[in-house]
């Protein structure tokens, strides 16, 4: 489909090992929807811990056979610890080369930042030094109103939004990362702003908006209808404005909303367990969402530490988890199951027992609303392209209707 831009999959998606350093649990902001319930200013990773983690990981090459690696840095706000990160990355580069490690041929440093410190000399020097191996995403939620609704500065006094402090850095970021995408998180209160926010992000020059609803059970009655209406409006705006050619919004995907084959499409959605997350104490987690500061109700799931290494028994449940085993019957039988996502950490946190094998279904109605909006979007877009003679393969791609269901 040359004429419709789709969201890019992440670098070496499905091939790369993702290793996350939780360098700090501090952040300048106190976003209202932030799932990190245990943020604080004390837990900062030391150089000794970071080095010990690297030495363990690179020293056990056989246990990490993935062809590529993404060294991911998160917080809190990772760029608060730019000096440490710079030291870590220099050490990683040197050690991967010194050891002749296979990852030297295929690695990235990845950041998800609130963008506030992006322009600072220290961050800029780091970017210039590592530009060919960097992936940096800046989170901006949309219009000033939408962004400042949730993404507010930490501290006492009157509530202050962070929109201006982030937006001023967007041009520099896009200059350095022209294909840069942003991540938008939608909670109940954000629904009325979805359409205008996505269009606003496009107007800032951001061509890729990765947007998702939160997995937590925050939804109010009627949210699905309101969500659907916003997506209808967004669909019309994208199609009528011709944005679909150069801009992408992850809400619209041609491949969602179909039943899933119980045998052929039984894989897990989430990559927890295939990733490795390390906190300031040198503790290993299957994903950051299983660290204590991410969990509301449950104890953290710890799979090892920098001294003793990884307890591979703790990874077995993650690596054998499949869709059907964790899904309730309503999800197995669902006619629009494809594209319905889940977060293993939220599943665990919301489960009735301490298990990762109970899928949370809080987003069920929201997913169904998204599917209806997607049907509308693709039917309208395909028809438009067909009428404009730009889509020769329209008929072959059109959704088929089974005669017996007519």
């Amino acid at each position, binding site marked *: 489909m040359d004429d419709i831009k789709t969201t890019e999959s992440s670098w070496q998606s499905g091939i790369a090992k993702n290793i996350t350093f939780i360098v700090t649990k501090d952040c300048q902001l106190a976003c209202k929807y932030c799932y990190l319930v245990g943020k604080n200013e004390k837990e900062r990773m030391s150089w000794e811990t970071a080095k010990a983690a690297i030495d363990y990981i690179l020293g056990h090459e056989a246990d990490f056979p993935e062809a590529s690696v993404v060294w991911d840095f998160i917080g809190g706000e990772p760029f608060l610890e730019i000096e440490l990160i710079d030291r870590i990355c220099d050490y990683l*580069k040197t050690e991967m080369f*010194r050891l002749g490690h296979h990852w030297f*041929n*295929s690695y990235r440093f990845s950041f998800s930042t609130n963008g506030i410190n992006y322009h600072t000399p220290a961050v800029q020097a780091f970017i210039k*030094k590592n530009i*060919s191996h960097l992936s940096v995403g800046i989170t901006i939620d949309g219009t000033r109103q939408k962004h400042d609704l949730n993404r507010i500065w930490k501290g006492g006094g009157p509530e202050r939004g962070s929109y201006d402090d982030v937006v001023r850095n967007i041009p520099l970021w896009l200059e350095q990362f022209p294909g840069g995408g942003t991540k938008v998180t939608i909670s109940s209160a954000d629904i009325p702003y979805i359409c205008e926010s996505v269009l606003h992000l496009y107007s800032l020059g951001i061509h890729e908006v990765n947007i998702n609803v939160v997995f937590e059970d925050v939804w109010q009655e009627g949210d699905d209808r309101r969500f659907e209406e916003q997506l209808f409006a967004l669909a019309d705006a994208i199609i009528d404005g011709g944005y679909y050619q150069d801009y992408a919004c992850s809400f619209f995907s041609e491949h969602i909303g179909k039943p899933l084959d119980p045998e052929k499409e039984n894989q897990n959605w989430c990559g927890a367990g295939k990733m490795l997350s390390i906190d300031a104490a040198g503790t290993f987690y299957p994903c950051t969402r299983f660290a204590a500061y991410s969990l509301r109700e449950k104890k953290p799931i710890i799979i090892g530490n920098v001294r003793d290494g990884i307890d591979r028994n703790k990874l077995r449940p993650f690596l054998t988890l499949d869709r059907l085993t964790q899904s309730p019957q309503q999800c197995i039988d669902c006619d629009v199951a494809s594209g319905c996502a889940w977060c293993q950490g939220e599943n665990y946190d919301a489960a009735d027992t301490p298990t990762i094998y109970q899928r949370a279904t809080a987003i069920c109605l929201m997913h169904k609303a998204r599917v209806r909006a997607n049907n509308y979007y693709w039917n309208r877009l395909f028809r438009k392209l067909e009428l404009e003679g730009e889509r020769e393969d329209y008929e072959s791609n059109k959704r088929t209707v089974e005669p017996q269901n007519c």
Partner: protein
Amino acid sequence: MKKLVGQVTPVERDEIQRLFERRNGLNELAKILTADNTELYERLVADMGDTGMKFQQWWDRMAAQYDWESAPDGNWEINFETCEIYLVTP
């Protein structure tokens, strides 16, 4: 201007992608490694020469094999996603 002039196999793509990534890695390592780290520095310099040579050999070999269209001021580019080769001219 960018013109599609050919395509390589995924195996051939993997080879040049690995060399491309290695070359980038060596270049960025060169920014932080100093000559006082003698052993590693010498390895780096040798590797940069070796990788650069293999990189060029790949293009020479593929160009001969596929007989791609060329231009006096142009250069070829590969799209790692699609394995497509483009001729880029000013």
